[in-house]
């Protein structure tokens, strides 16, 4: 018993120093939230892709700390060598090794399940603890000023033109309903605030609501105290945001933020001819959500759970006969059906490379659209995945990218090989975005102090 305790203590100490060392090394290039509190409202996009990003032989060759500018990136980041995306390379920072071990989240105790949970948050179904955590932190409690928008870039069985029977989500089964969810009541037929009568009347309406809200806050505080009043105060704060938005649309419209019109524009595009078009629609949704003033956090989820059907991005490849098979994501072994080897390991590897190359292009497109709207400086787009080698590759570190300065709080253009816990990235991310420390994120139940990657214990 004593031995165990000793081992545990030394492990913790070793972990502590290792983490502290890593944190110190990474401190420079990443967040400097506490020193850079003055910047404006940063926004976050979490760009999640289901497991298996680290395809064998698909490694970066840069040394730690190297600038991404000028380097010839191949494989995963090859898309940024294309002329249209080349300028974005300097806006990108790469973690070669983001450990998912400590992400915890209480979902089966699994480290990388934090990222799975993050994906699950897009369902908002609350089955895992982290999506509730995320909802609590962002949507309701700790950071009422953050607005979480969920964009599911999932090419799903249920998309009508694709066929199939599986149902993904009641609310986000297609881009049109995604819009309804994302823009909360703004549908293709709804007028935008700009299209409604006189902006000043809208301002009067929201002003009435805000006055009413503040009156109820006063009454609540009298009856129940300040803490209870704070519940309602959150609503008033949101109304204030709404007021600002309405005022903006009446005077200086925010570039790209026009949900009503965007929805109208989306409708014809919703023919779902294939994965490519679907992704474009979702990218547009994500950028629009970003462009709207109140949207501060976008979860852009790309799942690898594809129908067993040919995918456009494979058509001109050596693997053009490859179907999108489960083994693609599980990453191991050949696919054997009835004693016959259907797909070899090499075929599966080829398909995975193509698939992730395809997804990286979506990442690049999202960045470019955001940049074209001059949003990228205020935004940090974080690409995360899980289970780097495919299914059941639990502990290894996987690549993790981010782009954008997030309102000046994030350094870009670096390549980092130091291992870092993904939850620590999240904590630092939220700290940088909100200026607040959070005592926990993901709740792995260990009681472990949560490290940021900017050299501070949280």
């Amino acid at each position, binding site marked *: 018993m004593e031995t165990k305790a000793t081992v545990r203590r030394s492990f913790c100490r070793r972990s502590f120093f290792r983490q502290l060392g890593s944190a110190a090394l990474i401190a420079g290039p990443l967040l400097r939230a506490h020193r850079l509190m003055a910047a404006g409202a940063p926004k976050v996009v979490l760009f999640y892709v*289901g*497991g298996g990003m680290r395809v064998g032989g698909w490694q970066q060759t840069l040394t730690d700390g190297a600038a991404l500018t000028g380097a010839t990136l191949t494989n995963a980041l090859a898309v940024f060598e294309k002329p249209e995306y080349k300028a974005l390379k300097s806006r990108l920072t790469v973690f070669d090794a983001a450990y998912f071990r400590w992400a*915890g989240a*209480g979902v*089966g*105790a*699994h*480290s990388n*399940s934090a990222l*799975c*949970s993050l*994906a699950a948050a897009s369902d908002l*179904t*609350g*089955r*895992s*603890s982290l999506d509730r955590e995320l*909802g*609590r932190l962002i*949507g*309701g*409690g700790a950071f*009422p000023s953050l*607005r979480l928008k969920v964009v599911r870039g999932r090419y799903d*069985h*249920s998309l009508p033109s694709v066929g199939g*029977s*599986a*149902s*993904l*989500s*009641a609310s986000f089964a297609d881009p049109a309903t995604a819009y309804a969810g994302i823009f909360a*009541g703004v549908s293709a037929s709804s007028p935008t605030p700009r299209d409604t009568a006189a902006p000043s009347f809208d301002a*009067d*309406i929201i002003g*009435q*609501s805000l*006055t*009413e*809200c503040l009156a*109820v806050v006063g009454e*609540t505080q009298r*009856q*129940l*105290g300040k803490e*209870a009043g704070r*519940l*309602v105060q959150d*609503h008033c704060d*949101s109304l204030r945001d709404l007021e600002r938005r309405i005022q903006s649309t009446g005077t200086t419209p925010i570039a790209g933020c026009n949900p009503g019109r965007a929805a109208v524009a989306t409708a014809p595009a919703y023919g779902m001819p294939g994965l490519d078009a679907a992704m474009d629609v979702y990218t547009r949704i994500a950028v629009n959500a970003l462009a709207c003033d*109140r949207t501060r956090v976008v979860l852009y989820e790309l*799942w690898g759970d594809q129908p067993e059907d040919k995918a456009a991005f494979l058509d001109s490849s050596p693997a053009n006969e490859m179907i999108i098979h489960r083994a693609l*994501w599980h990453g191991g072994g050949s696919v054997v059906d009835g004693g016959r080897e259907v797909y070899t390991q090499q075929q599966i590897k080829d398909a995975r490379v193509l698939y992730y190359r395809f997804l990286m292009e979506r990442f690049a497109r999202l960045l470019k659209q955001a940049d074209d709207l001059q949003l990228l400086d205020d935004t940090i787009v974080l690409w995360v995945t899980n*289970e780097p080698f495919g*299914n*059941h590759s639990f*502990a290894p570190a996987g690549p993790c990218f981010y782009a954008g300065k997030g309102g000046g709080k994030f350094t870009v253009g670096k390549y980092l090989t130091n291992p870092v816990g993904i939850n620590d990235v999240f904590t630092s991310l939220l700290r940088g975005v909100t200026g607040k420390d959070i005592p926990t994120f993901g709740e*792995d*139940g*260990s009681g472990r102090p949560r490290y940021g990657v900017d050299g501070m214990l949280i």
Partner: protein
Amino acid sequence: MHCRLFLVLGACFPLACIGVIGNEEPNRDEEGSSLAAGDSPKPAGCRDEVLSAPTLRLLSPAAYMNTLNAVVAPYTRVVANFVRPEEIFVRNGFRNSVSGTVVTAEMTDVVFKNAQVAAAQLAANRGAIDARCGGTPTAPVELDCVTGVLAQIGRRAFRRPLTAAEIARYQDAFKTLRKKWGFEDSLRALFVRVLGSPSLFYRSEVGAAVSGRPGLSRLTAYELASALSYAVTDGPPDDALMAAAAGGMLERPAEVQAQVGRLLDAGRLDGLANFFKELFGADEVLTVSKDAKRFPAYTAKVPELLLQSYMRQARLLVADPASTFDDFMIGSKALVQKDVASFFGTQSAATDFEMRDVGVTRVGLYTHPAFLAVQADDLHPKPLFRSRFIVERALCIPLPPPPPEAANAEPDPDPTLTPRQRFAKMTSTATCSACHRLLNPISYAYESFDAVGRYQTKDDAGRIDPSGVLPLDPELRFSDMRSLLTQLNARTDVRQCFVGHWFSYLLGRGMPDNESCAARSAFARFEREGWKIQSLLREILGSEAFRLRQAR
């Protein structure tokens, strides 16, 4: 995808759940004052109830929608296309829990948008306005007219008469608006204010001081009317309940019981039926997908039909006065129709739901396919996750999140082992076994149901052995799920747990102390009246704990 498979295998729970099973110290709210003696006869030796704190409770999305529709319906024949707010999920509790009722920015957007739509409809209904005002009025009579209209709307929206302060500030607001805008627009702006008010989407449970009983407050008549109505119907009080509140009749316990009986008899019991939905997270069946090749019968319409089957059964449990705890735990009948009958192991040609005996392979809601399909991935069941529901929801033994060591220690699944062998191997360490000694045996029984909830005697790994030994006091040996549930059904602590969950749900708070006077009284009546679920509900809804709050 990866996550789900992992969830089947990876759950490993820490030592923190060690305890004397069957004799746990019940959870008690840490804050709060105790109920003083003197309101009603108490069971001998019971402990004082820890009362809920006074608070505001956010309406659930469904309750909010019901309320908004109830406000608008009398004034317009047009069905308003309101947007439903997204659900807010509450950790380890029901969604109506006070601790989870924090308004989100998303909801602010929705509420404001809906208020605009509703206000436009109301303001456009000149008939109602004219009836009150005698046509478009001119100053100075229009202020009286508007006040009258607002009093009507406000009473429905806030489930109580407007206060003098509210009326005064609405009048001031109207005067200000009227200087800039026409009558109808001014009225519309004011309607938005009322219909977007926190007083609509929060309901007050503050109460008023109780004479001679310091430390206590009692819900006002209107607060109680709302509390009863939302608990039972998930909607605002109807005219009869509002009239009873206005007439002061809800001061009398007998009248409260009568109103509860009336609501139960009226049959609109969404609030009560939602208890069962949330207990098992059954509505999540709409969000999970299944492998189309493996389960071709699980077509796109099946999730919705399974949920309908589940919710209809839940409604029966609360609506049928004869429904008992046994029906919930070990009832052998289920509602099926042609598209979902096969998931219950039966057949049906009916297009509408019909009651069928499915008891050969499954009993009660713990084996309903809507629940089982949620606790599964697209190919495989998640027996450990299913068993967690039995431990936490039936036995009320809390399971903490797994420790991080579990992740480090976890091996890849060995395909040569059966799931049962894998579970046993993975969880044999001291760290894991504290909780898994409970979870694993139950999971063996749950292996008898595949990823879409169908009964199976073998899976990919071979023949299933659903038998096990649950280390409770006394030890519980079972041969299969039916045998397990039948024995659990006979346990007192399982029935106490059920009572506790109802208290938690109806009062929007944590689990009560089983030995509290309120819980003991409810349990006693539950038992005395043959474990009828309605008896339990009548007792809780009529209890002091339901009406009383701590004083501020």
